[in-house]
């Protein structure tokens, strides 16, 4: 299933000439952190052979290639969401210099 999805979107990416683009796909389950319906875990060994990275609707990546994609690759591992209030964060979201 995974390879079918990846293969379809790899073809789509090539057809669109968007080799650097990251197509978005809605996974079968649609639940966060389960973007790889077949195995549940990304397999670095597949990277590059089945096509480019795919970002799911849940926001995680299949076939992650870059550091940010790897950090946010689809997984069924446990995770925690946290959005702390950071009063000193700059208006653009950047970190202020240390005192």
């Amino acid at each position: 299933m995974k390879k079918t999805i990846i293969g379809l979107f790899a073809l789509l990416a090539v057809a669109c000439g968007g080799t650097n683009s990251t197509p978005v796909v809605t996974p079968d389950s649609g639940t966060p952190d389960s973007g790889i319906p077949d195995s549940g875990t990304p397999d670095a060994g597949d990277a590059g052979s089945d096509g480019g990275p795919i970002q799911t609707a849940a926001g995680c990546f299949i076939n992650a290639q870059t550091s940010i994609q790897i950090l946010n690759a689809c997984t069924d591992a446990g995770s925690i969401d946290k959005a702390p209030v950071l009063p000193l964060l700059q208006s653009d979201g950047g970190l202020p210099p240390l005192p």
Partner: protein
Amino acid sequence: MHKLLLLLALAAVAAPRAQAAVPTCSSLSFVNPLYLEIGDTQEQLIKTLGAHTAAATTPHAITLVYRTNGSCANLTDVFTVPPKPIVSGTTMSYVLAGQNPALASPTCTLDAATPIDVGNAALFISSCAGQAPAQPAGVSAQQGPIQAYTLVVPNASSQTAITAEEAYFVFGFGNNDGFNSATNSTPLSPWNDTAFIFTRLSTKSTLLTWVHTLSQRGGDVAGDPRTFTPAKFLGTALNASSDVVGHVTGVTGSDRERTIGLLGAEVYDSNPTVLRELAFQWFDQKHAYFPDSALGAKDKRNLRDGHYAVWSPTFWIENVNTDGSPTKTDADYVINLILGKQQQLQVNPVDDIISVGLVPSCAMQVNRSVEGGPLSLFDPTSQCRCYYDSKVGTSSCATCNASTPCATGVCSPDGFCEAK
């Protein structure tokens, strides 16, 4: 009555002497001793491996005699020309055949200056720039297993996760993190009192790895400049991992909610009933993850696949001749074990590495080239991912042998169908 008091007084005087009676190392007549200077995050590995090398008969028994020290201090000792020996009078630990690694190692006192046979740093060597000399000719440094670093709180704390931005303010701003309890209904974080923040000394890999991790954006884009330095990392800097455990668990009452400390993941793994590991969300990451697939698991899955970003490779150092050959065969032998090279059937070093919470390179799916740097995919030519999973109870790989070949991949010596 007077006689009884006299006896008690004599006993009181004699007791400390009996307690302090540490033998000299030379009096113990170690079999093929090898002297190591290691980071304290690597002590469990040396205790576990040393119990096996001391019992091995092929090629011969080797006794590991070690001291723990900061990684950058270790590099200073082995990179100085000529190398600095361990000075006479130093208390050394040693590992006996079959010794239980959960127990403290016995100790002895060096009665002569002794050259270091194997040095260790539990982080990128470049992270000690400015603290240690550059690597000189005649010294080999090889990358070994991967070490995870973590943030911990008392087990009674309600905290479960921390983001990189939050940690930046906790350790960089301390009491001045901008949180005003009078105006903010949702606290920035409970960790806004440096009296309850426990860190490590500036030579320690645990501190330096966190310093670099919180100085990088972590992703693919150029980000904030490296602003963190050990001096700017706030909190009480402690010498040993055990000191952090003691301080974090020693806090009582409501102060436990305000307490946080830095540890090597394997130290947390040894203290899960009194400490709680925090899930960590790096810059540009959308969720917080533990080094393992879940709190309490022992599979280091998130570390291995890149979801947990706070880790560093360990480096193992020995002296070499001008042609690159080792000056001490036993040192090279032990380093090769630590690198996961099985050299004889009596010691399976990969099992020892896995059992203490380190990750052999062959089980990693990601890599990085600089402390706290971006991650890249890692596809080693000889993999042990399936074997690693089998040791932590999560393998779904096919097994194989001479009569049952793999449908895909290669049959590893351990009998698993690995991708390579």
